């Protein structure tokens, strides 16, 4: 188990290096710099700015400096926001994403899991076909369509919830963005749970449990739930990553101050350090999530544990 963990951590390092290098190379290959603007600066000022951010050094030195700072967990100073480090910007934005992301995932798990289990108990009935039909719709409609539609219905027409802004700790401001982000994953989870539960319910030990005369809800919750969780856990890795990058859209639509918006404005303004910092952070989080998922997998399934 420990060896497995170490091995995975060791492969994470080259992966992060690739991500960091790609981001750096792409940005520096691009024509135009962060301090190009319509008004022409006095050469001395231009030079002072560039030397302050080490932009006057040869590229390889900038790259090495960048890697060295990354290794220490330092994303450097922002080019756009004076006297603010990228770490501070991320620290401001991350709680927003964490709140929306975890709320969205919780919603998706509860709604999708319950729907999938109910559908699996009676495959082919209306309780199966209606939610599964809706799930296909949920997968096909992207977040940037559902988010404005949710605002249109629940904020503009019904006036139940606010349409944007961010008030930390207010569930009313959290609900619509989280719901918009959760819908496609709810649909996926419902389909996965349904398929896995149908398979689990076909196992001989379930027949035994039925023969003992156990009521359906006990069979489903006590005996079928655990094997049902397995494929769900392996879906959670990509889902977490998707929620993370999906929040770029949700933040844009609802105007939330998360790292997704930080990233998009950073990219538009050529804020090199913000863009590389957020990209590397995304990569690290995705690797971390996948590792977590693998650990959960090993914990849930003794057969996987034995192999590693």
């Amino acid at each position: 188990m420990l060896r497995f963990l170490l091995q995975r951590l060791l492969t994470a390092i080259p992966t992060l290096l690739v991500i960091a290098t790609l981001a750096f190379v792409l940005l520096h290959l691009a024509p135009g710099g962060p301090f190009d603007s319509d008004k022409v600066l006095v050469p001395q000022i231009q030079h002072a700015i560039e030397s302050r951010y080490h932009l006057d050094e040869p590229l390889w030195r900038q790259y090495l400096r960048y890697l060295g700072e990354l290794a220490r967990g330092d994303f450097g100073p922002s080019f756009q926001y004076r006297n603010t480090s990228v770490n501070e910007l991320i620290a401001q934005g991350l709680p927003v994403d964490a709140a929306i992301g975890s709320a969205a995932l919780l919603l998706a798990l509860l709604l999708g899991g319950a729907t999938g289990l109910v559908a699996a108990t009676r495959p082919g009935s209306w309780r199966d076909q209606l939610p599964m039909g809706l799930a296909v719709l949920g997968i096909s409609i992207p977040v940037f369509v559902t988010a404005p539609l949710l605002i249109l219905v629940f904020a503009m027409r019904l006036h139940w919830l606010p349409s944007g802004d961010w008030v930390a700790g207010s569930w009313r401001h959290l609900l619509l963005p989280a719901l918009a982000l959760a819908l496609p994953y709810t649909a996926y989870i419902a389909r996965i749970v349904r398929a896995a539960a149908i398979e689990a319910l076909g196992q001989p030990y379930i027949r035994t449990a039925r023969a003992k005369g156990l009521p359906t809800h006990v069979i489903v919750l006590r005996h079928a739930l655990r094997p049902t969780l397995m494929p769900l856990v392996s879906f959670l890795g990509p889902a977490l990553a998707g929620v993370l990058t999906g929040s770029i859209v949700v933040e844009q639509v609802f105007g939330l101050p998360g790292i997704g918006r930080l990233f998009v404005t950073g990219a538009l303004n050529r804020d090199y350090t913000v863009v590389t910092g957020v990209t590397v952070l995304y990569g690290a989080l995705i690797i971390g999530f996948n590792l977590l998922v693998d650990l959960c997998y090993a914990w849930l399934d003794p057969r996987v544990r034995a192999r590693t």
Partner: protein
Amino acid sequence: MRRTRPGALVAAALLALIVAAALLVPALSPYDYATPVWTKIFSGPSVSGGHLFGTDSLGRDLLVRVMWGCRISLLVGIAASLISVVIGVCWGALAGYAGGRLDGVLMRTVDVLYAVPFIPFVIVLEVAFGRNFLMVFIAIGAVSWLDIARIVRGQTLAICEQEYIEAARALGVRTTTMIRRHVLPNLIGLVAAYATLAIPGVILFEALLSFLGLGVHPPLASLGSLVAEGANEMQANPYLLIIPAAFLATIILCLNRLGDALRDALDPRHEEDGHG
């Protein structure tokens, strides 16, 4: 699990209808997608008024714009999927056929790339190199070949265990000929199925970029930029959001259905597990 899905036929018919409309309507309609008509701003959808879907904030006919959007979205979807299929098939077939160390290197690369957050990268690409339309294809195609590479590698491994490959090898057939003549033809069905499934993903990706203002240049429209325009006007004129959104969702839905059906028919190893 092999079964025919009646939904697939409906999906194919609906897609054909949308493609036909996307090709014909802009050619036959008296309206232009780009020219503003200041006297007709925000006229709602009506049959008698001449604008079936109404007009947008610049008085342009929404029907023509949506059909142009479908053209662009489908074009990007197909072109970028082709790019990803070509890269994925070459990569996967080479890894599966060569085996050994080369296989290890190629597939570890795929593993590493799987952890790369692609949406941010494509956004950086778009911003850095300008909103070049060709760039959209290449960027999306270049990042979406990983799944196909994995599937093709697995299938190639299975094919290479067949006797006729051994026979061909005994006859001294060269590697390139072997891959071209004996391996690739057996992959076509599978690749067709997964390429169909890749198209909706690519269309959504392009729509997302256009929605963020990084895709096609106005006045040209893709379904994503039309949804974005509609979202800005939705309070007073919700039809501007709902109509392009409905077309986008229908196209994605149909392609998913079609791809699922093709995969069920052509990929014997795929199990229905809801992952697809």
